[in-house]
């Protein structure tokens, strides 16, 4: 009894002491969303990038900013003249975590698994790759046979993450492609091996010493990614030293607070994450260009960027991020001007009805931008109603033409580095019902977007995307506000973070403590 009491006191004392006794070489990251599934083919969102990127490898990999594509499991690739046949030469001697060698069969199995389970990033490949069309002529060669030429195929190749085919097959149940098993297990060649996992808490990865790409001398032995939903807790944990890093898209007020702390450093990078109002173009009166322009004139861009966000971001007048090719350098965009808004509104023929904005609950920027627009729109005679809902709910409604809100203020992040990720997916009718939330159906725009996908001529593509961006902006098919800066908060002794808009700097294999 007495011993228990003493132990208890000791425990309390230990809890009260500053947390310095962290295992050497362990990096703890506080993440703002949950890791409910580890299956690399089931998830494809920014919030859960860490498990995909640290546990799995692709044929190529995105690194750095501006993003570069480097050969990873593949050593090289060639494309046929018609842009349909893509041949990848694999590195030899790459080991899975269980010691077996990764071969072309694993790549074929992985793409077939994606096409069959139809989840996560598979929507990038379903339209262009038929099941059974991918071949492995020898142990180290993979041939993708596309249905049509696709200029973005190469940018999406890193999303084909390679699983250990033999191991997954051994754990298949009722033909589920091992989905139940892979949700909680890792079968890969990746940088880290799964050590511990609890969907409600997060995961711990242990360095895979035999990883084919080798390791820097001081790389972390262990990485832990923990779900901490509350922003304030992440910030406080970082200050206290419980965490060594957290997400780089904190509200700017928190960044300012962190900048005053000695044991925290803030890394800055211009990201590719465009904040805009998604506008439902397919519904009156929003199908009238004058009504949309009236709204675009009614947003106080300066007040939002300079006062509310304290100038922490850069104005981005069009759909494509400024720091990417395909964004016209001289694009002017809209400015806050209520007189012009009234003039545009006067030209609207359809009766004007109250507009509904679906704001992202818990994301104050989304909510504040909605209130700001609501306030100004009222002055020109447009009533706006704001409904806040969690992201999952908003997203599921956006995908439905009837249930979609009129406007949604949100970010479009980088899934692959190509203007098609922005202007193409958001306004091309080929992406209707998936990522085209604008319900835009514009033949001219479609032609440019489709032509840009069908050619590998970079100059031609740039011209087409710039034309598309101009048209989308001019006709206010969306209200484009800013491009995000990434302020990566890390413990002061962390070095070697390689930020890339894809994965948001969470690729931990390059980092270490000083």
């Amino acid at each position: 009894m007495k011993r228990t009491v003493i132990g208890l006191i000791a425990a309390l004392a230990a809890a009260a002491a500053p947390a310095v006794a962290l295992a050497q070489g362990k990096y703890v990251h506080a993440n703002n969303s949950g890791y409910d599934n580890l299956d690399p083919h089931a998830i494809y969102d920014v919030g859960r990038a860490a498990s995909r990127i640290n546990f799995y490898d692709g044929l190529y990999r995105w690194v750095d900013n501006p993003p570069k594509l480097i050969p990873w499991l593949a050593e090289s690739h060639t494309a046929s003249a018609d842009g349909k046949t893509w041949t990848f030469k694999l590195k030899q001697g790459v080991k899975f975590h269980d010691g077996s060698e990764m071969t072309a069969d694993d790549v074929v199995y992985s793409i077939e698994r994606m096409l069959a389970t139809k989840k996560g990033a598979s929507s990038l490949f379903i339209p262009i790759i038929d099941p059974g069309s991918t071949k492995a002529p020898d142990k180290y060669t993979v041939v993708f046979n596309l249905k049509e030429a696709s200029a973005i195929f190469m940018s999406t190749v890193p999303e084909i993450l390679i699983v250990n085919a033999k191991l997954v097959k051994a754990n298949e149940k009722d033909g589920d492609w091992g989905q139940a098993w892979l949700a909680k297990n890792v079968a890969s060649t990746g940088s880290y091996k799964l050590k511990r996992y609890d969907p409600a808490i997060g995961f711990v990865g242990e360095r895979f010493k035999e990883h084919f790409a080798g390791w820097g001398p001081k790389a972390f032995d262990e990485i832990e990614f923990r779900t901490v939903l509350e922003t304030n807790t992440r910030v406080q944990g970082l200050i206290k030293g419980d965490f060594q890093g957290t997400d780089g898209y904190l509200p700017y007020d928190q960044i300012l607070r962190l900048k005053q702390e000695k044991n925290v450093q803030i890394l800055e990078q211009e990201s590719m994450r465009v904040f805009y109002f998604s506008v439902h173009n397919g519904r009156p009166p929003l199908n009238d260009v004058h009504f949309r322009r009236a709204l675009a004139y009614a947003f106080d861009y300066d007040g939002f960027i300079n006062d509310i966000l304290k100038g922490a971001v850069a104005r981005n007048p069009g759909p494509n991020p400024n720091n990417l090719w395909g964004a016209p350098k001289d694009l002017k965009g809209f400015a806050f001007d209520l007189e012009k808004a009234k003039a545009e509104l006067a030209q609207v023929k359809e009766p004007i009805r109250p507009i509904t904005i679906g704001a992202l609950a818990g994301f104050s920027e989304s909510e504040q931008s909605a209130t700001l627009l609501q306030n100004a729109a009222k002055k020109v005679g447009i009533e706006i109603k704001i409904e806040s809902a969690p992201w999952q709910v908003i997203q599921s409604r956006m995908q439905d033409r009837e249930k979609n809100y009129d406007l949604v203020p949100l970010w479009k992040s980088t899934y692959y580095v190509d203007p098609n990720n922005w202007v193409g997916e958001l306004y091309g009718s080929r992406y209707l019902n998936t990522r085209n939330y604008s319900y835009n159906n514009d033949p001219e725009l479609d032609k440019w977007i489709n032509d840009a996908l069908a050619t590998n001529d970079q100059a031609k593509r740039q011209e087409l995307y710039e034309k598309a961006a101009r048209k989308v902006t001019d006709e206010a098919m969306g209200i484009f506000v800013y491009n995000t800066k990434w302020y990566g908060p890390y413990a002061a002794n962390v070095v070697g973070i390689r930020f890339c808009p894809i994965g948001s700097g969470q690729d931990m294999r390059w980092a270490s403590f000083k």
Partner: protein
Amino acid sequence: MTGSWRRTAARFLGDRAALMGASLILLLVLAAVFAPLLSPFPADVAEFHTANRLRPPDGVNWLGTDRMGSDLLSRILFGARITISIALIAVGSAVLLGVPVGLVAGYYGGWPSDLLMRVSDIFLAVPQIVLAIAIAQTLGPSIENVILALSITYWPFWARLVYAETRSIKNEVFVESAIALGASSLRVMAMHILPNIASAIIVRTSIGMGATILTAAALGFLGLGAPPPAPEWGRMIAESREFLPEAWWYATAPGIAIFMVVMGFNLLGDGLRDILDPRIRRAVGRHA
């Protein structure tokens, strides 16, 4: 009759708690009614000054400003209107629905009354707030829907209460004699039973107002209350969360406003209980 009312009024004035409660409520009503006159910046309910955001209290903005740069004092005063209308209408309709149901069920008995009571049991089987959140979420955020969600989930409480009270006095001599004298059921319920359970209803209405204000604020806090830019107190507290610890004033003022109002209704309810409902006196023998 007048004599007894005079006695009651005298007692009321003698009860410090009840008086204090009544004055707090009066304060709320005054704030709500005269919000446009009392507010230093009445336009700030819907007007933003982004350059002024998150200012601590000073001579201009006595309670500081919020995340859009609006004056918090003005918004809190206008918020009193939302609070008072939600509480009044939600509790009012719950009472109007629950009391007749409980009265009829308690008076007649039998299987219809059992059924009614079982239906009310269903609502009482989980915390009220859970059902209220679910209904408010379904209907979408607006003041009307908050009121609806609160009344739908609150009437069973009144049905239960009145049912129990009615059952307990149904067999009293004065009720039985009224029936024997040939009074209609409606008359018995309205003229003999209701007046005798009225005090219990009044006492609990006051306390129920407080509880309902708290629940409504919780709905607002979870983002299910009146949509922005309505100056709803619970939502203001939720908004302030990410600006702590710097903007300490942001949550403080609306929190205290809620506290004062609920305190007012609770004190008044306590006082009324002492005065009107001798069976459940707060301090047994205190007035003896």
